[in-house]
């Protein structure tokens, strides 16, 4: 069971919303599918991202995947710790492995995301 206080995209990003602030990462399932993560490319602070548009890239030894923004907003912070320790995404995907903090422009978009039950069903279906 994935954390129940988060919302999810079909592309396996999670988001924790707190007012008009949000924290974004990728799910444990996604990290497991990618394998050993070796690099995370994140946008600079201040950049605007649109819901479901690509904002960065995550690389494992033999795969690469785009990262999609769960919600629209501007980048308030990027997790610099991942530059030196990308393995945090494998080890603690919902905690220290976070990727972005966003200042949301359209918080209502959260309604378009999956809740924990729906996301669990998605990954159970493979």
């Amino acid at each position, binding site marked *: 069971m994935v954390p129940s206080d988060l919302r999810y995209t079909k592309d396996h990003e999670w988001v924790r919303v707190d007012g008009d602030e949000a924290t974004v990462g990728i799910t444990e399932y996604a990290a497991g599918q990618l394998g050993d993560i*070796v690099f995370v490319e994140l946008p600079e602070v201040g950049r605007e991202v649109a819901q479901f548009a690509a904002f960065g890239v995550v690389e494992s030894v*033999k*795969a*690469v995947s785009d990262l999609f923004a769960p919600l629209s907003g501007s980048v308030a912070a990027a997790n610099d710790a991942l530059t030196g320790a990308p393995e945090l995404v494998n080890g603690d995907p919902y905690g220290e492995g976070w990727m972005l903090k966003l200042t949301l422009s359209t918080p209502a978009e959260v309604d378009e995301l999956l809740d924990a039950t729906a996301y669990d069903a998605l990954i159970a279906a493979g």
Partner: protein
Amino acid sequence: MPYGPHTAGDRERMLATLGIDSVDRLFDDIPEALRAGRLDLPGPEPELELAGRLQALAGRNRTDLASFLGAGVYRHWTPANVDQLLLRGEWYTAYTPYQPEISQGTLQSIYEYESLLAELVDLDVVSASHYDGAAATAEAGLMTCRATRRERVLVSKAIHPHYRQTLAAYFGGGLELEEIPLVADGDAAGTTDLAALERLLGDAGRPVAGVIAGQPNFFGLLEPMAEIGRLAHGAGALFVSVIEPVSLAVLAPPGAYGADIAAGEGQPLGISPQYGGPYLGILASTDALVRQIPGRLVGMTTDVKGRRAYVMTLRAREQDIRRDKAASNICTNQALLALAASIYLATIGPHGLRDVAAQGAARAARLAEALADAGAPRVHPGPYLNEFAVRVPDARGVHRRLLDRGVLAGLVLADIVPDEPSLADALLVCATEVTTDAEIAQFAAALKAELRESAGQVGAVAAGRAADAGPVEAAR
């Protein structure tokens, strides 16, 4: 079929296993209307006859001339062990080390290549090879655009014309390439025009991604690299240095004057001229650009038992994984030539390489003196290492006639830089450690005789030049 193992019996056994009577059945999926007829080719030829044919073809090339031709490809002494080692099938009949457990030889050799070249260029990241100096320079140009997210690159007109043409083709997908003119006269004639560079960089609406200049430049002259780099960085652009590797034993390396990227032709490191390749594209960068550099990278790591071992790494930049977002489409590279360069460097050593560069400089000084005495002074006054341009009236005609006197008198510059009036009557010549006193004397004497004869028939020169420009000689 010369190399196939199958007897008629083998083929029958395979067909029987498949339950078919003819191999044609395996091609039934080709639509009938699209099936090919016969292949109209000569041969087949048994090895004995083929060897004779190849020898005859090779014999039709004239490689016995006293050659002063460089222009990006140089004659050097290659220690005999280089080619003997390259001929081991374990090197040249393997492919890309996708399976590191059974490719440690290739992988360690590439890691060592990266390390050797890193020492030479004084930069930290060296890609495992590109096609040649031109393609490596083009990739360097694209790298500056990716890294800065800008779309305009400035290239010195003193870069090899083939490299500039290659850049132009690689930039054909929508990026902008502009040339920095040469200084026309004075002490700096033939080098990159710094004032023009400053103007081009100052165009605020069109920010520059990268500035590309060469050391030595195409005309053999030494450029003010530190100053070019300072101007580039001042405008937020990256600085690409196009290098010749042997010269780096004695000339300041790119890392020492602030270059972000070094590109160049590795042919002088133990690789024969072969009429154009295969050569070795050198591409190196600072650590900061490691994710932008295209081509394979090999890193040191450990195996499951903790033993030192090597593996291709940062693979996710490459086309087979990242597809349309890859740093480049390069797949097959020039690994065997990188191996040649490594064996060459390991054999010749740091002192040997310095001797090669210094000996070339010494031979070139002697050549310059001899040619000046023969009536062909240098075109540019600035310092050079082992290659320079000389002024020769009716250069094209003289060059052609010197072939009959056993001399390949360098390159007719007007054939390769047709749009530079100051080089209309000039030859680009070089010397290396293999250039002998006898060859220099032969060149000088032949040139003197040629100039004397043409001075005697001044009136005939103009008519002669038109004839010289016939298709065979004007081919470049």
